[in-house]
């Protein structure tokens, strides 16, 4: 059981705080000889597997060898992202370059560099993508309440998938606290109230914090991390908190 991440979204849909507390490892490392039997492509400044799937390495769909550049979509029209190259020979990859400054596609195109060990995994979200996802959720929240078959419905409070549950708490002033957690994790509702409390105490009462702007407060950080730890272990903050 785990809490994956926390997002705070202001009333305009802007992301003002984000914390990744735990990222489960879903990575596959394998040694390859030349030529590489996976098709790698540059997409959004990252090297993704566009075609080919084997040994726990997931490929994208809809972008075969002949297809031009473009988003990776399956035929039902939905994005299917393949795994990204995370490390080569133990050296981390950032975007399209390795940590020691080599370009990934160029390096893997050269037969002299083989055999090579490549680590693949789910592409990590960039801060740009997090901003985009936060404002996307802001709109989904509003549409969810508009399409309600019952009078007086709120927006999305809990969204369930097979790998995680997203819990959202919107305050009366319009700020949204979003927590991504394991589907079996209990006590998220009290955690959301606790985060609101921490936000009021350590962000709002900080004289240097300006409303609606990104939260950069050390005490907020510390207390939030503490609350996440407590919630993961105990699953609740007890009655009344």
């Amino acid at each position: 059981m785990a809490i994956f991440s926390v997002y705070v979204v202001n009333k305009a849909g802007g992301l003002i705080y984000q914390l990744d507390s735990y990222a489960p490892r879903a990575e596959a490392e394998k040694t390859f000889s030349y030529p590489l039997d996976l098709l790698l492509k540059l997409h959004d400044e990252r090297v993704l597997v566009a075609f080919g799937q084997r040994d726990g390495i997931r490929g994208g769909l809809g972008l075969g060898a002949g297809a031009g550049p473009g988003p990776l979509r399956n035929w039902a029209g939905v994005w299917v992202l393949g795994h990204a190259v995370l490390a080569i020979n133990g050296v981390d990859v950032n975007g399209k370059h390795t940590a020691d400054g080599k370009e990934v596609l160029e390096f893997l195109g050269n037969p002299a560099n083989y055999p090579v060990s490549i680590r693949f995994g789910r592409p990590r979200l960039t801060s740009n993508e997090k901003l985009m996802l936060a404002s996307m959720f802001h709109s989904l929240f509003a549409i969810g309440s508009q399409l309600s078959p019952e009078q007086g419905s709120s927006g999305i409070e809990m969204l369930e998938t097979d790998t995680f549950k997203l819990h959202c708490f919107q305050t009366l002033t319009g700020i949204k606290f979003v927590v991504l957690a394991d589907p079996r994790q209990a006590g998220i509702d009290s955690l959301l109230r606790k985060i609101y409390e921490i936000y009021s105490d350590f962000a709002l009462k900080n004289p240097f914090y300006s409303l609606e702007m990104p939260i950069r407060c050390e005490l907020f950080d510390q207390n939030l991390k503490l609350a996440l730890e407590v919630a993961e272990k105990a699953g609740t903050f007890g009655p009344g908190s």
Partner: protein
Amino acid sequence: MTVHNLYLFDRNGVCLHYSEWHRKKQAGIPKEEEYKLMYGMLFSIRSFVSKMSPLDMKDGFLAFQTSRYKLHYYETPTGIKVVMNTDLGVGPIRDVLHHIYSALYVELVVKNPLCPLGQTVQSELFRSRLDSYVRSLPFFSARAG
């Protein structure tokens, strides 16, 4: 417990079927617009969820709930989407949505040569069977409808 309404979409976003039972509030827009909005929301949720997920997903998006209702979602590998809105007391109903797809849609629409695929289902048999199946569900209560 109660069932509010049910949408059936194909993979292109065409609303194949819509029916409602205990719906207290309309969206305030024409039905065609509502279908588009619903499909658009589901489409975005799918893409949102697949990017947010910390692990690779199998079934993907299953359900969401607000303070007043719960939306259940089931998608087949061919892109047919079954969406049912119920109240909050209803648990996971994947098997129910799967039954609507496999025993009703496939049997009465796909296997019916008189039902063209990719447009609104006209079959009266499908409508009445679906209606009686939903009415027979344990969580469908006959609360003033």
